[in-house]
């Protein structure tokens, strides 16, 4: 029974990893054919680094994700603090408003923002993509910060004010340190969501492409073998990141 259970989990993992692993192996294939192994080579990696489009898309993806994370974390944390201190009725309204982007399907969010940008005459490109990413990131930041705010002692902020702290000082030195874990969770969530987003970027920025929209548009034009190399590199980067985080957290435990 135990063996059977492990075998089942192994099967599911194989299902999840097989496409990625096949791509990594193929990325070292010297030939163009998927069926024939023509020897080991870094040819596709060289081609990947010589493709300006990919480089541009990578920069767009990373900068949009970073900027969206910073802005949405600041706005979201402030909003969470405000919502937490509200009276019952406005709080319910705010939480309901915050739920709209969370329940709306990606495609509708993307279309509605596209309509907004065209309606207001803002040319769609890098900036609109960034605005859209901030918009779908903030609710997640708020959802990660709110529980931490509920957990902390509600009186400590008032106590700081009574002891002569200005509201800004109390915010930075009393509330913020307490909710920091929630802020970090929210920021990480925002970053990964932004990196992974396809649908909303697709509608809000037809001119400037990030990795998702670039791969999508190229996948329809037939095989680009440097994509294999790209997935291999991304997979390795991910594993390294994971190991680093793991090492840090295990150190922190000691």
């Amino acid at each position, binding site marked *: 029974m135990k063996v059977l259970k492990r075998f089942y989990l192994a099967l599911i993992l194989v299902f999840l990893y097989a496409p990625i692993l096949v791509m990594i192996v193929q990325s070292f294939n010297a030939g163009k054919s998927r069926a024939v192994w023509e020897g080991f080579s870094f040819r596709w990696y060289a081609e990947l680094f010589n493709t300006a489009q990919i480089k541009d898309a990578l920069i767009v993806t990373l900068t949009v994700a970073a900027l969206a994370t910073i802005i949405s974390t600041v*706005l979201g944390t402030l909003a969470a603090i405000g919502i937490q201190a509200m009276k019952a009725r406005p709080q319910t309204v705010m939480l309901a408003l915050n739920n*709209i982007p969370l329940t709306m399907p990606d495609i509708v969010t993307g279309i509605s*923002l596209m309509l907004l940008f065209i309606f207001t005459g803002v040319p769609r490109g890098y900036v609109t993509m960034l605005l859209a990413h901030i918009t779908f990131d903030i609710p997640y930041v708020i959802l990660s910060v709110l529980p931490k705010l509920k957990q902390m002692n509600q009186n400590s902020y008032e106590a700081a004010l009574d002891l002569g702290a*200005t509201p800004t000082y109390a915010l930075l030195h009393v509330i913020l340190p307490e909710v920091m874990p929630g802020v970090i969770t929210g920021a990480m969530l925002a970053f990964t969501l932004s990196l992974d987003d396809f649908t909303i970027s697709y509608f809000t920025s*037809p001119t400037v492409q990030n990795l998702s929209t670039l791969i999508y548009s190229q996948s329809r034009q037939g095989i680009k073998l440097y994509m294999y190399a790209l997935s291999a590199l991304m997979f390795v980067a991910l594993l390294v990141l994971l190991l680093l985080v793991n090492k840090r957290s295990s150190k922190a435990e000691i």
Partner: protein
Amino acid sequence: MNDYQMPSWGYWVMGVGLALYLVLLVGYFIKCRGFRRPVFASPYVLWIVIFTVIPVLLVAYFALTDGNGNFTLDNFRDFWDSDYLRRAAISPERAEKLKERGMTLEEYLPPNSSNVDTLIHSIWMAFQCTVICLLLGYPAAHIMADREFKLGATLVVLFMVPMWMNFVLRTYALSELLEEDGLINNILKGVGIGARQLLNTDGAIQLGMVYNYLPFMVFPIYNSLNKMDYKLSEAAMDLGCNKWQTFYKVTLPLSVPGVISGITMVFMPAVTTFAISRMLGGGKTPPLFGDLIEKRFSGSALNWNLGSALSMVMMVLILISLGFLQKADPKGEGGGII
């Protein structure tokens, strides 16, 4: 595109509104020497009004007007009336060209281009995907949450790694596997079954959905099983339940919030996707509802008013299914992956 731009007074309203907000904020700051906490939420209120509320109202506005901005319910009629849609799917110039080439519209249009049929097909595909994910994911989550099984936390990370890879890249990888000369067909050939058409079928789309959304089913169920007090099932065993009875009467009911949350997180994206069906179906399968909407906004069959109406239909569908799911888990204990 100029037809769709707002009138110039719109800019005045926006500018005056923004200025008013800033003046009020600064005035408040000077008067009270700082902010009370609820004011911290005000930038977000402004943000959500501009980037969520107004866009949704815009979708509603376009859905309820025709090309000239007059009120109409025609867009919703077109949702029901498939004949109209089949004609509207092609622009007049294109229809001319087709005629020159001696093709009729019926030959050119893909099968099943009726909107309602597509919606039903889409729901059916998403439903199948949800059931498959549940059948595959529940046992996996159950095994991982077992107290005897020490690798649960590691496996959660292992399930997450493919998810962190770019969604489009992941789907692309899957399509490479299913290609005519891809790995699976090579194995089939090697075994002697011979190559099959795998890519550009409904099955491929289904596989892509399950592949992408399976972790969304596993995590919430794992979390709810993990949080469960194991003493409860031990008590049931002590009181004479056998393994199956314990599972059926104790474990399963307690994991319902996780299951509900998993169903939500799989069904919602599955019923609205268009990238998966485009990449794995290659336009050779009946379209999904997401495809239909996407085509109205960026494809060959540009029609924002109809597209907005379709989006509204989709939103209503999502709200109805969320309502049903909320009934099954009123306290919302399932939570997400957060």
